Structures are given as C-alpha cells and as structure tokens.
C-alpha cells in the first residue's frame, strides 16, 4: 500500500469539522473492517472508473 501522507507543501484547507482529541479511533471496529474488506473485494472484481485510471 502506498504511503499516505499530506504533502508538506500542501496548502492547509479550512474544514467544517471541529478538531477534537476526544474523537476516538474506530479503525479496529469489526464493522468498519468488514465493510472496508468488502469494498476491496468489490473493486478487485469490478475495477475503478477508466477515466480515473487514465489520469494516473
């Protein structure tokens, strides 16, 4: 999997969300893991939009 990081020279864009350290990480929740794995199965079967692949 490619490294994901915000580009250091990327302009910071204002967002609508409130930033809070009280927000938990739900990355290990079984439901979200299951859904993410299902998405991978779907995309490996059906692929991505051709238009987006041409621009990569």
């Amino acid at each position: 999997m490619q490294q994901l990081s915000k580009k250091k020279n990327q302009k910071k864009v204002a967002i609508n969300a409130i930033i809070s350290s009280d927000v938990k990480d739900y990355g290990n929740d079984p439901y979200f893991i299951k859904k993410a794995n299902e998405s991978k199965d779907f995309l490996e079967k059906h692929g991505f939009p051709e238009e987006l692949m041409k621009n990569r």
Partner: protein
Amino acid sequence: MQQEKYDYATNEDLLNFVFDSVGPKGTIKKIIRFTARNANGITYFNLGFGDLNIETGKIDDLIITDNKDRDKILATIASAVLDFTSQFPDIMVYAQGSTPSRTRLYQMGIASNLEEIAQLLDVYGFHTDSWSKFERNVNYEAFLVIRKKL
C-alpha cells in the same frame, strides 16, 4: 453545504468523524470512518457509517433509529467527505450501503447535494457492470468520489 447539517468533530488524522443525531428517538451518536485499502494496486478509502452502540462501544449499521433527520444526516456525511477529500485530494473514496436500501440513501444524499458536491468532487456510480459519471434517477450499486483537479 447549503442543506442543514449537524455539527461534527474529527481528530488530527481526519479518519474518524462523529456527530449526534437528535430527534424523537433521542440522541444517537453517529460515526463516519474512512478506512484505507488497496485494490489492484490502487489505494483508496472506504467510507463506513453507522450508529455507535453505547452499551457495547461498537458500531451497529443495521439498526434503524429514524430520528426523522435523514436529509440532515446525509448532508453531514457529504460535508465530512468534502472535509476528508480536501486533505487527501488524490485519493478516491468508495461508499456502498450495507443493504440496497442503504445504498439508495447514499444515492439520495448525493443527488440532494449534487450541485455543491459536483463543484469540488468527481462522482461516479456503479451500474450495470460499469462505472460512469453520477446522474440522478439511476440506481447505483456503489459510489466513488475524488477531488476535482481545479
């Protein structure tokens, strides 16, 4: 987002978004989670959404709470997607409901907010075995969005 939406919070990594749905069924904590995956060499994020079960601390997607705030919830999810993609502009976000009716809800949310979303995102839907640009009144099985290259 022009449509009414809930206030929502995230933390520094912008992968988890939380908000409260308030209505006749009380206050229900809603969680949006962007989870990275790789398919065929392409890294993307899956959008997951569900209710937090306060007793178990786990996500429950199949529960139907019906706080009569469907459009507000969908506008909130759309706004969170805009926030997320503003920070990860080169990464696709995939969304599919746990059931066809849930997928249809996502579709309605996109259609209701399309004018605003389409200014910033390219939106694709999967229908009859292929991906195409999102159009209203087409029943899609899944969605992919990515920040427009402006």
